[in-house]
């Protein structure tokens, strides 16, 4: 949906080099697809013009009841709703019999992924879309937060239709994610990843100078014997057959985020 705010001086209709592409980007034919995105021959991601629906985030709280019937929390996840709507997920949903004082819960997921890769249960290319738990967990990783912070700071004060994406962000693993409140199983398994942000759509609210930008965040990681062995294992010796034990496994984690923006200068 592209609307033009009535008192804006400039059109918000997308054009070449406008909303969906940068004039500095390569114009070579689109090649590989990553989920709903396409990777150009330059390696940069782009997205064809489309409207992605905004997702409404509900809030749900899990609680116990006292004799009086009043709800209370035994011990909420210290990171709150940022860790998902199930505030007891970190103790497997059983707050009365489990605890995670050291924040090691993420290790289970990391070890499970490692085992699946080593035994060949996971390999090839896997796309974790916005609705998957893996993508949601990656979106909460410190690496993703740094990518988000970079993207928003770069677009701070920019009009909606001038927002630009980010390519080849080096999203390095942060060791705070091993323990404590930042413990994150998917991030622990992924380690460092490549980060990209593509502008999905931008629109103005009818009769207002305010609008929104929907950004698509993508983190990409390849697990291989070369990466396992610090590059000492030659790439040529990697196992490339999908489904084989220890074979190369590329994971793509994709999620969207909606931002408020100005459609035109207020003066």
């Amino acid at each position, binding site marked *: 949906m592209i609307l033009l705010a009535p008192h804006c001086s400039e059109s918000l209709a997308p054009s070449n080099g406008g909303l969906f592409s940068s004039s500095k980007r390569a114009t070579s034919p689109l090649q590989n697809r990553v989920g709903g995105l396409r990777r150009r021959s330059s390696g940069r991601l782009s997205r064809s013009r489309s409207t992605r629906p905004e997702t409404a985030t509900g809030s749900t709280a899990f609680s116990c009841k006292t004799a009086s019937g009043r709800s209370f929390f035994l011990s909420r996840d210290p990171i709150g709703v940022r860790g998902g709507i199930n505030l007891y997920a970190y103790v497997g949903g059983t707050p009365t019999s489990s605890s995670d004082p050291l924040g090691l819960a993420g290790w289970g997921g990391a*070890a499970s992924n490692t085992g699946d890769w080593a035994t060949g249960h996971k390999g090839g290319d896997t796309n974790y879309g916005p609705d998957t738990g893996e993508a949601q967990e990656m979106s909460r990783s410190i690496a993703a937060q740094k990518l988000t912070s970079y993207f928003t700071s770069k677009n701070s004060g920019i009009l909606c239709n001038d927002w630009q994406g*980010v390519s080849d962000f080096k999203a390095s693993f942060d060791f705070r994610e091993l323990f404590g409140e930042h413990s994150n199983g998917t991030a622990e398994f992924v380690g460092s990843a490549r980060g990209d942000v593509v502008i999905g759509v931008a629109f103005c609210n009818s009769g207002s100078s305010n609008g929104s930008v929907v950004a698509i965040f993508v983190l990409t990681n390849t697990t291989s014997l070369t990466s396992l*062995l610090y590059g000492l294992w030659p790439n040529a010796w990697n196992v490339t057959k999908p489904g084989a034990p220890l074979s190369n496994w590329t994971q793509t984690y994709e999620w969207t985020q909606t931002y408020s923006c100005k459609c035109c200068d207020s003066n």
Partner: protein
Amino acid sequence: MSGLKPIAASAVILTSILLLSCEGETKKLVDGYRLERFAENGKFYLITSRSESGGGVFDGTIEKIGWNQDWILASVTRLYNGDPNGWYALQVKTKQVTGPFSEAEIKANPAFSGILPISCADVMAGKSGR
């Protein structure tokens, strides 16, 4: 932690190795600056520390690079698609980055004389861009 079984401990160690090994190879340039080839995309970044996120010193990926004791010159593709690509110069002592410059401007600037930028792959292979 005390209830951790040996098999789980092994998985934890293996996972630690996995996540530790995701950074790429690096090559020392000058005064603590290093060229890194990031394993996840094969692109090159100028860094000062292995754990940095983002685009490194030039806020982008590097195709060609050259240096001497005073300057590091690089052909940079900026991370933010709204930023201009081109040649950028880092003054080593002041840590100031200037640019973008055109190739002609680089060649005409006497401060950069004697610097011969080469491909990052060549730098990694041991060739010198100085």
